[in-house]
């Protein structure tokens, strides 16, 4: 007979649903006070949005992956390689650049998904992919960084980016919460074997989820290229870790399952962005910022992790 242990983790479970809302509000209020109102100035809010767009879009894709109990460590590298590919194609035609970058991302994601469906743990598959494309990126940009064609610089406007973000969020939310795909992803995360016995085609779902993550990483690659104007060996470095942190902050269960929600990525990314921004306004250096992010992340994981079961990355 299974018992719900009357463990201290009752707090953790409730916290998981409150953290996204309360956490964001607390961070905004605290830093607004500390920075004497600079945090919520229009200019600063624009900056925060700019900084978090790419992270939020990547979170949308990774939400599908994480809800199955898997993980995607290749987001940063795929972003980088798609940046390069997109930059090359954009020389011919800007739209081709976008399409090309997303198609490449889709292809890499599909390969990830296919390998995971062969029962290879996702962290092994995606770390391998990460290394391959990080290496390729460094090689291709070692002599000179690739640059964005000048005519595309006009896209570096908040309106365009906000539009793209809005579109992706709406589509992501719809597909994850209201379609068969999303429900099957969550079921696999909750119990893969039982889901398969209920007719879920785990192979198909895994491939599609990783493909979506790859596609969106490709889109992020182009957006990043537009913002920074170049693709360098450092593009997207450690990005996947930040995406993971953002999702967990936002309340995403580490093992996925039924409690996964699309809003986790949005709230987590905003929290991280406000936190980092606030600290920078306060004059904190980049290294200390990294340290603080890490500590806060550990704290969030400690409170909310489901310790009764083991953390198994599938």
């Amino acid at each position, binding site marked *: *007979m*299974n*018992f*719900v242990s*009357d463990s201290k983790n009752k707090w953790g479970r409730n916290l998981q649903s409150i953290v996204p809302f309360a956490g964001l509000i607390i961070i905004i209020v605290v830093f607004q006070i500390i920075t004497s109102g600079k945090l919520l100035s229009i200019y600063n809010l624009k900056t925060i949005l700019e900084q978090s767009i790419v992270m939020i879009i990547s979170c949308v894709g990774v939400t599908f992956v994480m809800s199955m109990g898997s993980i995607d460590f290749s987001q940063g590298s795929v972003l980088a390689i798609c940046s390069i590919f997109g930059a090359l194609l954009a020389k011919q035609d800007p739209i081709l650049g976008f399409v090309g970058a997303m198609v490449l991302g889709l292809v890499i994601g599909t390969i990830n998904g296919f390998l995971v469906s062969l029962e290879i743990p996702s962290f092994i598959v995606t770390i391998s992919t990460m290394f391959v494309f990080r290496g390729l990126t460094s090689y291709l940009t070692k002599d000179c960084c690739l640059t964005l064609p000048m005519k595309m610089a006009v896209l570096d406007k908040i309106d365009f980016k906000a539009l793209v973000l809005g579109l992706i969020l709406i589509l992501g939310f719809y597909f994850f919460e*209201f*379609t*068969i*795909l999303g*429900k*099957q992803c*969550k*079921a696999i995360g*909750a*119990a893969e*074997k*039982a*889901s*398969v*016995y*209920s*007719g*879920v*085609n785990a192979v198909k779902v895994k491939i599609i989820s990783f493909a979506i993550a790859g596609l969106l990483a490709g889109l992020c690659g182009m957006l990043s290229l537009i913002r920074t104007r170049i693709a360098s060996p450092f593009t997207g470095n450690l990005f996947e870790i930040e995406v993971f942190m953002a999702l967990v902050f936002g309340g995403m269960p580490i093992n996925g*399952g*039924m409690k996964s929600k699309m809003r986790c990525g949005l709230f987590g990314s905003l929290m991280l962005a406000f936190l980092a921004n606030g600290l920078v306004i306060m004059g904190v250096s980049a290294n200390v910022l990294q340290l603080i992010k890490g500590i806060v992340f550990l704290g969030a994981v400690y409170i909310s992790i489901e310790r009764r079961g083991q953390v198994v990355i599938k």
Partner: protein
Amino acid sequence: MRNKEIIFESKDLCKSFLMTKAVDNVSIKIFKGEVRGLIGENGSGKSTLASMMAGILKPNKGEMFFYGKSYDPKDQVDAAKSGISMMVQEMNTIEGLKISENIFLGKENEFVKNGIVNRKNMNDKAKKVLVEFNLPEIQPDINIELISFENRKLIELAKSLYSKPKLFIIDEATTSLSRKGRDLLFEMIKKLKKQGTSILFITHNLEELMKICDTITVLRDGKLIDTVENNDLNEDLLKNMMVGREIKGDYYRKDYDTCISTNPVLEIKNITIPNVLKNISFNLNEGEILGIGGLAESGMHTLGKVIFGAKKAESGYIKDIKSGKQIKKINDAISNGIGYTSKNRDQEGIILLASIKDNIALPSLEKFGKLSFVNPKREKDFCLEATKKLKVKMNSIEQLVLYLSGGNKQKVVLSKWISRNCNVLILDSPTRGIDVMIKASIYNLMQKLVQNKKSIIMISEEILELIGMCDRVIILKDGEISKEFKRSKDLTEEKLVKHMI
């Protein structure tokens, strides 16, 4: 019996989980050398009470006494040291460790000299223990995952008894054992009783209970109803106490000469899996309850999986007659109107960490909207309807299945398939570990289904169930069909068992 020494006593013991009062002011006395049975419906508080006695849970109120002294164990290890240990239904041995290491887990100090464990001594002692438990053919220095599920359970028994507990609790541990295992367990219980050990035996199996227990305590809704001597008992009286109202004695089918159509709906032909199944061929007819019986290792559970498309056979095929299509994977089966309830309910039948609604909706998601859209209202209405049909006892449809009793979990599994109007149901051990009331309702449901021209394959290790419910029973032995029986009043357990072993 009344003059015997009281070894365990509880006074007004209470335990609640959130809103539910699992154990409600239970005062129980257990005597030395007594075999006490503990029964009650699912949710009556049996396992909760036992867990408090074994140190797994802490009571909210009340006191416990062991040998007259106040008893408040910190945890299971503490309880075991005091002399109370428990064996549970789930697997409690550790894979990757050798058998001898599992038996002496936590007690390795006995074999330690100068900081090093003497493996030879440990293995020798393990060998003696294995012989004592009638398992002489097992080598103690192999990894435990290499032996059968049943033998692992028996090793667990050896481990629990090695520390010579004064009160030994068995919590529904017999459901996964075969006949041989159960007989061994009962032998052990008799031996322990002679040595003065007391046993608390929790099970749903009333026949077993009445065979070996001296006295039986009945719980209902967390309260202790009564403790009765075995001589004063009969099955109907017990059922009455468990449920609080009249239960008719026999809950199996009453009809005997029902004509079964000879329209086959499913064709199973030459199914072979090396070392597991050999050339299994038979047809499932429309409106029939076909039973498949045998020992646990006879291959029947695997056969159930093959018919559902969950396991692949080396040769042979399963064909759905109406569509003419072969069943090669699970989705083939489901799209042809076949449903399956696994023996392994918690791993394969149901998603514990999901709501009742999500579980029932999962195989039917395409019904709730066009183009893979899932309309939340349609989904909810569909699932509510399904739970009403089977009378699932729940707080709300969003409740996690984890919190339901075994019987209600099984009802959710069945709802999943019945809501799809499946034509064929493969039920593997459908009433395993389920209380009397829900068992009766499942049998009732099966009869209603076949009256509506649905067909059922029932795989079960409970011979009485097969005799009571099926139109035909196929017995498997060592992977082959050994005999087929037709429903008849003269069918007895002995007749079937003869062809199983």
